[in-house]
């Protein structure tokens, strides 16, 4: 699992490793209240962002359980960094992984995350041989929940008031998908007409 896969492309995006110059772009979505509410919880000020980007710059391969692959979502058209997807390999023997994502609200609702996550799921299941992939989100993050269902993930858990977050009771959803549930027909290739038997 020491493959270096970045960058790779989807229709409209380039998924690449983070770079030193990304701090401002990352800060533009990371420090927003919405990201604080639902996203990674301790990146509030530009100085925190610089540190977070510093860490993400080193997360370029999955070599052992616990490792994270951090991908910047860059629009092909104008090269603008609009969000991020992180793939964490959490368990080797049971083939478990977790995906976290964040997008600038100005670019949400345009299918970018669907595109990026589909590509990352493909990568997880085919390149990294993940057996089960999970995503956590806040119970009030309706966009995330809808996106997960659109991608075919099952709602596995709905925790109610299981913790306190910023003085409020927290509600958390877990979505998951198994390798055989993700594009179950993906390994069946259409044969060209001249190779068909009948």
């Amino acid at each position: 699992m020491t493959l270096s896969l970045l960058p790779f492309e989807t229709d409209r995006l380039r998924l690449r490793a983070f770079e030193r110059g990304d701090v401002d772009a990352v800060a533009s979505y990371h420090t927003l209240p919405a990201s604080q509410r639902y996203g990674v919880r301790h990146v509030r000020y530009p100085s925190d962002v610089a540190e977070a980007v510093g860490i993400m710059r080193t997360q370029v391969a999955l070599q052992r359980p616990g490792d994270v692959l951090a991908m910047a979502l860059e629009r092909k058209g104008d090269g603008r960094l609009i969000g991020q997807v992180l793939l964490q390999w959490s368990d080797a023997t049971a083939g478990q992984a977790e995906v976290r994502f964040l997008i600038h609200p100005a670019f949400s609702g345009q299918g970018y995350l669907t595109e990026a996550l589909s590509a990352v799921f493909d990568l997880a299941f085919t390149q990294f041989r993940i057996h089960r992939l999970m995503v956590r989100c806040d119970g009030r993050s309706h966009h995330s929940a809808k996106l997960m269902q659109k991608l075919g993930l099952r709602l596995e858990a709905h925790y109610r008031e299981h913790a306190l977050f910023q003085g409020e009771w927290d509600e958390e959803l877990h979505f998951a998908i198994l390798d055989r549930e993700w594009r179950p027909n993906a390994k069946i290739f259409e044969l060209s007409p001249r190779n068909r038997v009948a």
Partner: protein
Amino acid sequence: MALYPAYPLMTSRLFLRPFTRGDVDAVHSYRGRDDVARYLYDAPLSRDECALAVQRRVSQTGFAEEGDRLVLAVETQADATVVGELSLIWRSAEARQGELGWIFHPDHQGRGYATEATSRLLDLAFHDLDLHRVYARCDARNMPSWRLMERLGMRREAHFREHGLFKGGWDEEFYYAILRREWGAMRQSTRHS
């Protein structure tokens, strides 16, 4: 909040009390069985292992800080038979969370002892320990366990599929939980003990 309950806790037919050294054979009579161990993390316990387990439990009788656990023997009042054990772990002081667990002797199942005993412990959890939410987990194939949780009014909060390996196969797990106000409503509408 620290809590050292006065023992025994009573229900109409049962005592819930701390373990004593004299309980080793009683514990071995169910923890030594394959059918009891199937869905537990431990393999069936030998008598020596039961003796160690009982020794540990002798002091697990109260809560001083987060992470502490209570493990109690469930004994019939009529003939002083140990029919199983209950545990309550104080998982979070800030969010007032606890985890409930139980193991009952198959020979004594079907008489409502488990429901009666766990109800008493939920009363303690919400009333005396002032918890906000109590959860419990079980293997999805362990129907008696999750049926008990449903009788107690717990909601199925999670159904994890193949999220880990357990005893040589893929694990499938249920999480059930109940909030303090839900238990209060449950208590008003039914009488368990």
